[in-house]
């Protein structure tokens, strides 16, 4: 409790006046590194220090249009897309023949390879156990985005 706290009756929006200091009778010491950890000698590399490598720079070209999604299922194994991998999806890219895309099929987000064979449009799996999905005119197909990178933990 604060020192010098006389119980002042408080009414609506009244101003509390008087010495009112926080209580410092207990203290907990937290070790904080307040100084830079120095190498102990001036490094010959100091004048040539380059910047840090940032994965965002490597993987993301259009930040406003880039989303991450996680994979369930194994129909794209041959494309190196495994269950629980994270895919980097860029919605700004125009989907081209051969791209791995996220498509909305029957209201669900699915990952497949887009294939144009003449006039036919197919969503191919990359796993012999799974058939291709042919897109007919009456079907409601929306290409949600193009997969640019798959992030796979070893």
């Amino acid at each position: 409790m604060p020192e010098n706290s006389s119980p002042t009756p408080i009414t609506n929006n009244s101003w509390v006046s008087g010495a009112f200091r926080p209580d410092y009778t207990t203290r907990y010491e937290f070790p904080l590194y307040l100084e830079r950890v120095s190498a102990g000698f001036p490094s010959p590399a100091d004048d040539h220090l380059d910047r840090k490598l940032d994965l965002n720079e490597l993987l993301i070209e259009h930040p406003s249009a880039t989303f991450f999604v996680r994979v369930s299922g194994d129909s794209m194994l041959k494309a190196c897309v495994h269950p629980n991998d994270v895919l980097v999806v860029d919605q700004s890219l125009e989907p081209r023949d051969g791209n791995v895309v996220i498509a909305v099929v029957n209201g669900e987000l699915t990952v497949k390879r887009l294939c144009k064979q003449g006039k036919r449009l197919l969503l191919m799996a990359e796993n012999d156990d799974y058939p291709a999905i042919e897109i007919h005119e009456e079907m409601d197909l929306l290409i949600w985005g193009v997969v640019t990178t798959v992030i796979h933990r070893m």
Partner: protein
Amino acid sequence: MGCRDNGYPSYVSNMAPCLALLDCNNFYVSCERVFNPSLQGKPVIVLSNNDGCVIARSNEVKALGVKMGAPFFQVQPLVRKYKIQVYSSNYALYGDLSQRVMVLLGELVPVCEVYSIDEAFLDLSLADGSSAKFAYQIRTIIRKWTKIPVSLGLGRTKVLAKIANRVAKQVPEYEGVFDLTTVDPEPVLAKVDVQDVWGVGYRYAKALRQQGIETALQLRNAPQGWIKQRFGVTLLRIVLELQGIPCIPLELCPTPKKGITCSRSFGRPVEQLAELKEAVATYTTRAAEKLRQENLAASVLTTFIMTNRFKEEPRYSNSATVTLPVATDDTAELIHYALCGAEAIYRPGFSFIKAGVMLLNLGPVSLVQSNFFDTRDRERYRLLMSTIDQINHRFGTGTIQFAAAGLKKTWKMRASNRSPRFTTRWDELPRVKA
């Protein structure tokens, strides 16, 4: 930057100005649909904090007559009958998607004023008069890149752009863009109720209707001298804007904050002081985070608590204001003062439904002057707060909390049906089927 006589910044050349209001259609619903495409075409609503009332409706729900702000319990029968999908508000998601839209917009249109979470005013003045075409392109790109559908209304002034935006939304044939600068505005303004004009609220509208002014067109044609004398210069500006004379410039630099408030209603009534203090400490933490983000410090803090005004039970509402000896942005210090305030105004025997904290008298933290009696090691605590902020930023809000804010927080608001934080949490990413 300097303004010319007509209120426009001098970098806009002498061509006739063309402003646009861009706003996202049913924004919160649209956000829910981004990662859940099966919601397209289905009736969807989003509820406010505590699942109290409807704050967003899809077009299908609007067609059923559900009003904005309708209490959820009133809407329940319709929800069951029409299988309306109900979501609790997911501000982490909405804030992130809003930022994407606004950043993208900023890349497409150099002069842009973000007005709210889902609205922005743009300067689309183009020498060759192809503003409407540009607007369609903006709409298409935003839809493709972020999946958020937007509507644009073009007009010579902000007020006219707002009206044009409403028309763009109401008439599907316009495909989301309506240009008031290339058509005769009179038939359009004649159909707009005076209360729907931006800046004309309920009270002005009531007084105007008594004088026979019921539409935007009638307001536009009202004698200026009379408007200024009877209603003041604020309404006169609106009349001039309706006439196509810009009076409200684009605000490109946001005005500095005068106060930061954090308050919420509780998920259930709170009667114990201990729980009330937990809530107050939590809200103080959040307000202090916002304070530090703006590099401000506060020297006045107000704590307030209240019971439910709408229930038939004993009522109590009170607040306590503390002037701090030294302006501060330190959560620990602010929590202490906020809790003292809460203790002072708490009364047993009441069911509290809401509490909050207001930080006032804000000033830049770099200009804070200590006083002779100040014994607090401010440098040290500044480092501590900076470290905590960085950890919370990296690992998620609330990773490190102050014990005073409580661990279980059973008083916290309900959000029983919130969708995952698809774009801000690694463990809540949307799933795609392979």
